[in-house]
């Protein structure tokens, strides 16, 4: 986030990493509440989706940052949409695979 800064940049990445713990504990709570019965592969799917989602956003904005305006928006629109749809699909699957014990 702070490329030319000696201190802020590493700090930023550490914080971002730390935040991910919150993200997934939060996600875990939601999963528990809606009794998705998460397991390792479900989590890895979700995790992978999350990673690619963030990377897509970052990538698109990198293009915007280096003044590739067109490309930036198109990538965001194209890949982003695909990912959103994919996310919905994953959610659907998780709900369908809900273990049906009370």
């Amino acid at each position, binding site marked *: 986030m702070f490329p030319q800064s000696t201190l802020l940049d590493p700090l930023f990445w550490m914080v971002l990493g730390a935040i991910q713990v919150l993200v997934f504990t939060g996600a875990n709570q939601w999963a528990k509440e809606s009794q998705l019965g998460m397991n390792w592969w479900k989590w890895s799917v979700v995790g992978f989706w999350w990673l690619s989602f963030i990377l897509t956003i970052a990538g698109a904005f990198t293009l915007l940052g280096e003044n590739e305006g*067109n490309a930036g*928006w*198109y990538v965001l*629109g194209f890949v*982003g*949409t695909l990912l*959103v*749809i994919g996310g*919905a*699909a994953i*959610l*659907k699957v998780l709900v369908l695979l809900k273990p049906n014990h009370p």
Partner: protein
Amino acid sequence: MYSKKRIDFWKKVASLVSVSLLLLAWYCGSIRISDNQSDMVDQLLINGELLTQIHPRLYQGTSANELSPVEFIGLGSGIGYGGITEVAVTVSSQGDIQRVAVLSSKDTSSYLDKVLQSNLMEKILGENIKVSLEIDGVSGATVSTNALTDAIKQAADSVRVQVFGFSMLENEEPVSHFRWLDLMAIAMFTMAILVNKTRHRKKSMFNWAILLSSMCVFGFYSSSLFSSSTMGILISGAWFSGLGNYTSLILLSLVILYIIVSNRNVYCTSLCPFGATQECLAKLGNAKTTSLTNFFFEWFPRGLLLTTLCLGLYFRNPASFSYEPFGIMFGMIGSIYLFVLTVLAIVTSLVVKRPWCRTLCPMNPMTDFIRFNRQWFKSILNKQRAKREIMEANQMADVAVKSNEVSK
């Protein structure tokens, strides 16, 4: 709250006004058009100074110091999505192609651009027209390509006749006008009607089957679903002079006919590829139906469609005035605005069922318009029956009421 009668009256006014507006637009367009072709051609001379027309499709350029013409400019036309594409080809007196110019096209500009960017024309520059020209196609815009190639070949031929005294065109037949896709369209449509009529318990399943297959065939495979531009082409009569692709037009006319006959619109529910896409996404995100019942939301799309059609008529170029997300969705073709629109529509339809259909789709205004006038016409007919006038009138009134509710 206005009384139904009052609204009905204003609707009648509106429908009359819109028709007259369309006529007006057409008329203004015809005034605007002037024959600017010859001075366009004038810009295409290379070595020649003086341009003289030999016959309607052929010009010759002569330079001061030489008697024999230094170059010829042939005109040719081909038939694309929206109608005729005009091309001029400048050929040296030895018969080498020196310059190609697209004078006019009625195709959606993004399709045309795709063809032009593919520099398929650069390949024929410098070729000699003694031999027939080999021009390869462009994936994703076949019709525009064919239009262009036909036009170029025609233009070259009119020069060929002049310079070498023989023609090569007769062995090349014009674009085939009736293709299996058109048959497909008719077949699918009849199926759609049947499915809508049937009382079978698997009805909805059948419906899905048609929807999906139509999404594949008329959507992702051929991207030949109709749009406001098709409506424009229909009313502008551009199809008299022929079209490169009739599928969408056929679909549209079938839909219209069926609405007129049976007052029902089967397209949206069982055929529309974009509708199908939205349905799929709705299934994915368990989207629920909701709609906006408000005077503005009802009338804005109508105004929009009317404006678009008027513009299409005025510029004599209906194909370049479509505003639907279809082009992007099924062919990644269209302006950046439409790209954004498409993305929005797709994402929204994960939450709301068929957002596009509930908002701007030109299909609703068209259906409403036809239905309303159908109703109106019927009522007039009935009024003419002198007997049982009042009773009839009352009946009509509440039928009209119903129809309004349907149309909202």
